[in-house]
């Protein structure tokens, strides 16, 4: 079958972990078309049994990330023209995660690690108390602000080769969230966070290869956050006071 210029040749990974296979579909090409549009076309017009995950379609919810031609991408904001100049697309579920079925990766390990990194809010005040104002000029707040636009899409986790080689590693997203909380004056468990990111799968496993920052769709830099965690854990271990 030859591919005409107005047709995309799309290979999709199908099946569950025990029986993976690849299927190819010819999908009509349009002037403006995202990778998610292509996947949706396949599901609606060619094979309704295709499983995949999406919600908002505008790059806010972080649920549609997939491997596109080997690169982890948010498919709803990825234009086919930019990633498939030759009209060929290869779509697979996110790397470094178990497959549930077809393009839906099991995000459980990813979010379990957020909890393991203490990347959750630890309240410092009750409802009767006043709350700390957010002061954008303050250095610690500015550092936290750099990381809070994370949409939990898992692209950095899929891009990271340290995760690939070391399944216990907490990964860029969870560690970056831990870093934003560490810099948040409203979070009450600084020591708990520092301990949680210092274990066997902690921030010290990062090799600063920077794939997280390279592929983050929101252009965040988890590598920078993890470097900050390394610095703070060492500083805490040497018993010095925080100066941030």
């Amino acid at each position, binding site marked *: 079958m030859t591919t005409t210029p107005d047709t995309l040749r799309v290979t999709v990974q199908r099946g569950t972990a025990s029986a993976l296979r690849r299927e190819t579909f010819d999908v009509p090409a349009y002037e403006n078309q995202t990778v998610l549009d292509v996947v949706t076309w396949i599901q609606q017009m060619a094979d309704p049994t295709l499983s995949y995950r999406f919600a908002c379609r505008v790059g806010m919810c972080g649920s549609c990330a997939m491997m596109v031609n080997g690169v982890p991408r948010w498919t709803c904001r990825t234009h086919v023209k930019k990633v498939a100049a030759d009209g060929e697309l290869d779509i697979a579920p996110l790397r470094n995660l178990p497959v549930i079925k077809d393009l839906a990766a099991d995000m459980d390990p990813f979010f379990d690690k957020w909890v393991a990194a203490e990347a959750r809010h630890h309240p410092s005040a009750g409802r009767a108390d006043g709350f700390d104002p957010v002061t954008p000029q303050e250095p610690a707040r500015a550092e936290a602000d750099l990381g809070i636009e994370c949409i939990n899409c898992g692209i950095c986790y899929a891009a990271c080769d*340290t995760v690939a*080689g*070391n399944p216990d590693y907490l990964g860029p997203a969870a560690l970056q969230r831990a870093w934003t909380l560490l810099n948040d004056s409203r979070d009450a468990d600084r020591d708990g966070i520092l301990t949680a990111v210092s274990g*066997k799968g*902690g921030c*010290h*496993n990062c090799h600063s290869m920077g794939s997280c920052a390279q592929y983050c769709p929101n252009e965040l830099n988890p590598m920078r956050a993890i470097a900050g965690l390394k610095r703070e*854990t*060492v500083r805490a271990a040497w018993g010095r006071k925080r100066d941030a």
Partner: protein
Amino acid sequence: MLDLKLYMAQRLSALVMVPLVLGHIAVMIYAIQGGLSTVEILGRTQGSLLWFLFYGSFVIAVSVHAAIGLRVIAHEWGGLRGRVLDWLMWGIGACLFYVGIQAVFAVSLP
């Protein structure tokens, strides 16, 4: 597979080795001209406390550094974990320290 302690040992040994490596490279650049001989090497190092301390601390730092570095590679690329990984690290560190200190003694004892 590193926790905070191994990480600090890795970075501290690295920091110690920065001046040592620079010194070692400088000596190599100085000594290589005209070829090397056992007599020439021994003439420089034998009976010298300074070279003994220089290469002695180098051997200690490199044993720590290489053992932890190879541990990471054995885990990430070799899939080793748990006790095997710990034994491997300590084994490599001990072996390197042993051959290293032999070499330091060999070239610096008067």
